[in-house]
């Protein structure tokens, strides 16, 4: 197990290094001179030269990359061009609202998605299945921003039940997390159903039924536990989806999180912030996938010894 873990961790290094290189090159791919961008439109040539020296842009590319990597490893992503504050501070302030939003969305959508998927598999081709799968296919077809606008219109504007924008109380979390999680719940439901349908046709399920176990025990004990194995992997992939989805949902609900920070940064061409955020998002995503793979290896021993 430990060997597997070490192997996987080492395998991450080239991927992360390439990601860092891409994110580093990102600034150099931007149209225009980064020093001029950083100095602002009204800067004199002298100021631009100073800024260039200050940012190390006068050095060779490999030197700059080393400097960039060293900074990143120490948590230094440079300063925001817009607010002049360190990017790490900007990100730090916005991290928790996005984290809780993603967490809330993940929690409800996995629970509901698996429940719908299980019910659909057990009553396959009967009405609970049809209702569940109709909901699920609608869920993956309805864009999050449109769903957010509909929910806000109905529950905040018309009914006044819930607040519209902001992230102050738990009530603020309800609509954004519903919006963000809807597609994930739908994907989880579809995936759980197909995984469960396969499992319910296995010989050991037939054996369990043949020996007279109640159907609930067959479904929960013999079915669900085995059906969960592929579902765990799917969950990890969905985290990436949520990280991406949160960008759009945060715009709809004016959420003070990382997604809106990113959209604002792209609008303002605040490239140090974009760099930091892209790096953070991809690091989170890679890390989550690693955790999922390890979990998978814990559940399923055949993977470990490959």
């Amino acid at each position, binding site marked *: 197990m430990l060997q597997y873990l070490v192997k996987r961790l080492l395998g991450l290094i080239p991927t992360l290094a390439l990601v860092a290189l891409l994110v580093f090159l*990102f600034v150099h791919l931007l149209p225009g001179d980064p020093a001029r961008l950083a100095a602002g439109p009204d800067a004199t040539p002298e100021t631009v030269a100073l800024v260039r020296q200050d940012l190390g842009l006068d050095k060779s590319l490999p030197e700059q990359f080393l400097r960039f990597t060293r900074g990143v490893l120490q948590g230094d992503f440079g300063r925001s061009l817009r607010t002049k504050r360190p990017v790490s501070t900007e990100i730090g302030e916005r991290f928790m609202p996005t984290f809780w939003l993603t967490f809330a969305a993940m929690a409800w959508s996995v629970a509901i998605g698996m429940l719908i998927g299980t019910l659909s598999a057990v009553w396959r081709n009967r009405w609970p299945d049809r209702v569940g799968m109709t909901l699920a296919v*609608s869920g993956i*077809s309805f864009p999050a921003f449109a769903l957010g*606008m509909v929910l806000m*219109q109905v529950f905040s504007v018309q009914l006044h039940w819930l607040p519209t924008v902001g992230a102050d109380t738990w009530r603020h979390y309800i609509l954004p997390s519903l919006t963000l999680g809807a597609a994930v719940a739908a994907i989880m439901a579809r995936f759980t159903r197909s995984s469960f349908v396969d499992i319910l046709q296995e010989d050991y399920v037939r054996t369990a039924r043949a020996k007279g176990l109640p159907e609930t025990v067959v479904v929960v004990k013999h079915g669900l536990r085995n059906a969960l194995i592929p579902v765990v992997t799917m969950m990890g992939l969905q985290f990436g989806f949520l990280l991406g989805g949160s960008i759009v949902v945060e*715009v709809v609900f004016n959420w003070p999180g990382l997604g809106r920070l990113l959209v604002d940064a792209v609008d303002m061409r605040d490239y140090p912030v974009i760099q930091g955020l892209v790096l953070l998002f*991809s690091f989170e995503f890679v890390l989550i996938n690693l955790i999922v793979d390890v979990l998978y290896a814990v559940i399923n021993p055949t993977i470990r010894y490959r």
Partner: protein
Amino acid sequence: MNEQAELQPVDAEMPAVPAATAVRTPWTEFWRKFRKQHVAVVAGLFVGLLILLAIGAPWIVPYDAENFFDYDRLNTPPSLRHWFGVDPLGRDIFSRILMGSRISLTAGFVSVAVGAVVGTAMGLVAGYYEGWWDRIIMRICDVLFAFPGILLAIGIVAILGGGMGNVIIAVAIFSIPTFARLVRGNTLALKHLTFVEAARSIGASDWTIVVRHIFPGTIAAVVVYFSLRIGTSIITAASLSFIGMGAQPPTPEWGAMLNEARADMMTSPHVALFPSLAIFCTVLAFNLLGDGLRDALDPKIEQR
């Protein structure tokens, strides 16, 4: 001599089988199974209708989508004169939705087609040659996969600038790794089968083996994914326009229209309703069609 004797009975039997059932090409097999999926057939017809509407939109639209302003009916709900109502600037929403279908369908088709072609080629090479080719290509995919969904697209738009063309490039790049992995997996499974070995033993070149013998075996999976992926791509492209990075107003792109409609949600919700419905119906149709194609093309499904 001996060989001929063995072959003959087979030849003799052939005419005895009625022609209609004898010819079971992959196409007839597919059609036989697909036909039974009524929902998917309807979805497919709907997709066909959408494509026709999108092509004919410039001749069908009752009003100019960008430059016609009905100042007497600002914000009015649907009526006979304006089927989907009028937006706060006086533009006819029905005309804008129709013209928008061209943008969304093009974005969906082109981006997925580019992603599928590049991804399939990469997957075939990686799966067939393995070794270094495989390692390099799969590493590229890992890196592309390391950026969650829309983030990669946003990064690309940040570099290239906004606009629908760049959005299409961004969404295409983000479709590549999925197709590459899918095709690589299929290629790995196919290349050890007897018919590939047979082709190699009669001296077929790598190119012939990959193009004539392995590639056809991966088409089914690619087609299914293509259809399911178009839905995702339409949503991604609309999302980018919605957050202001794709099509810019006054372009009648559905996501951009929704973003414009946000300001007037309180007074005229119908302005937001129709673009939402348009995206939903289009994506739903592609997803249902994709589900149907999968059920018809996946050999595992039939046993259920």
